[in-house]
């Protein structure tokens, strides 16, 4: 490559890089401004557990996205047409971690939910709509826990066997099944959690 050609490339790439830099600086400024001035306390709501509740919902939402991708990759694995096997290994690990984090925050906000006060969500439901607590919330709090062993088992098998798994139909089926069950358990818990929160937030 001649010296003139190198100079030309340099002059062509520099404006693009500087534009990206400018956009990043503006984005950073916008984020800092929002973080410093936005009244987050108002949107989170009152209460000691508002932040924990928001974190639980946020991580559950992330998990919804990632477990949907995992379900698609599990289907590709089941049909033996998967191209992104390393992605499936990574995503199964991510859903395991997100399940664990969502469960931890869920435990935390379960404290105000079942608090022995007249205005706690549990007291409200028992007084006004007992089935919401006795059937739907009780089921939600248990089935949410199923997501962790299912995703950990899937991730473990995917990493332990690696690409050897692609040649074994029985193991492909088992991992696909684990990820399908994880998705079913998670979406039930997510849907019921959203419904209960809509009726009576913490």
């Amino acid at each position, binding site marked *: 490559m001649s010296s003139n050609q190198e100079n030309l490339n340099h002059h062509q790439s520099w404006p693009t890089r500087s534009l990206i830099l400018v956009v990043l600086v503006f984005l950073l400024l916008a984020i800092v401004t929002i973080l410093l001035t936005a009244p987050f306390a108002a949107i989170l709501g009152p209460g000691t557990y508002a932040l924990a509740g928001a974190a639980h919902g946020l991580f559950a939402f992330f998990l919804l996205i990632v477990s949907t991708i995992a379900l698609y990759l599990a289907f590709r694995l089941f049909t033996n047409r998967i191209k992104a096997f390393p992605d499936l290994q990574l995503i199964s690990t991510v859903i395991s971690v997100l399940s664990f984090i969502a469960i931890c925050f869920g435990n935390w906000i379960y404290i105000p939910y*079942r608090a022995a006060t007249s205005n706690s969500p549990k007291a409200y439901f028992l007084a006004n709509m007992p089935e919401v607590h006795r059937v739907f919330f009780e089921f939600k709090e*248990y089935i949410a*826990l199923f997501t962790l062993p299912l995703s950990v088992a899937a991730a473990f*098998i995917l990493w332990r066997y690696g*690409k050897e798994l692609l*040649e074994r139909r*029985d*193991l492909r*089926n088992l991992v696909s099944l684990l990820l399908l069950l994880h998705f079913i358990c998670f979406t039930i818990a997510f849907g019921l959690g959203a419904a209960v929160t809509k009726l009576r937030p913490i």
Partner: protein
Amino acid sequence: MAETKIKSTENSCNGIAIAAAISAMLGMIGLGLSAVLAEHSPAISAALQRLGQLWMPGAGGIGPYSGKETVAVIAWLGSWLVLHRLLGKREMNSALWTGIFVVGVLAAMMLIWPPMWHFFS
């Protein structure tokens, strides 16, 4: 199909995978059984609460739920340790064990469905 033609790097038995799946199922059944037992016995419910309070931060605030989680974790990880050692070097009947896994998970789901708890009383 060319996209999936990848050579094996090692020849592993399926016992390791079966152990991982069955232990997950046992953890779920442990959770379901502890939920049913706590519903029908105040003594077991109190014992589960004490069990959770042994190690879980804030367990006092969530009652016997902390103990049910503890039972589930012990059943899951404890059985995984044992089954991994027992089945790790064995080639298992995949169809049979996958069937057992599915039936077990469905049974665990039935155990945590609150309207079912009254059938045991």
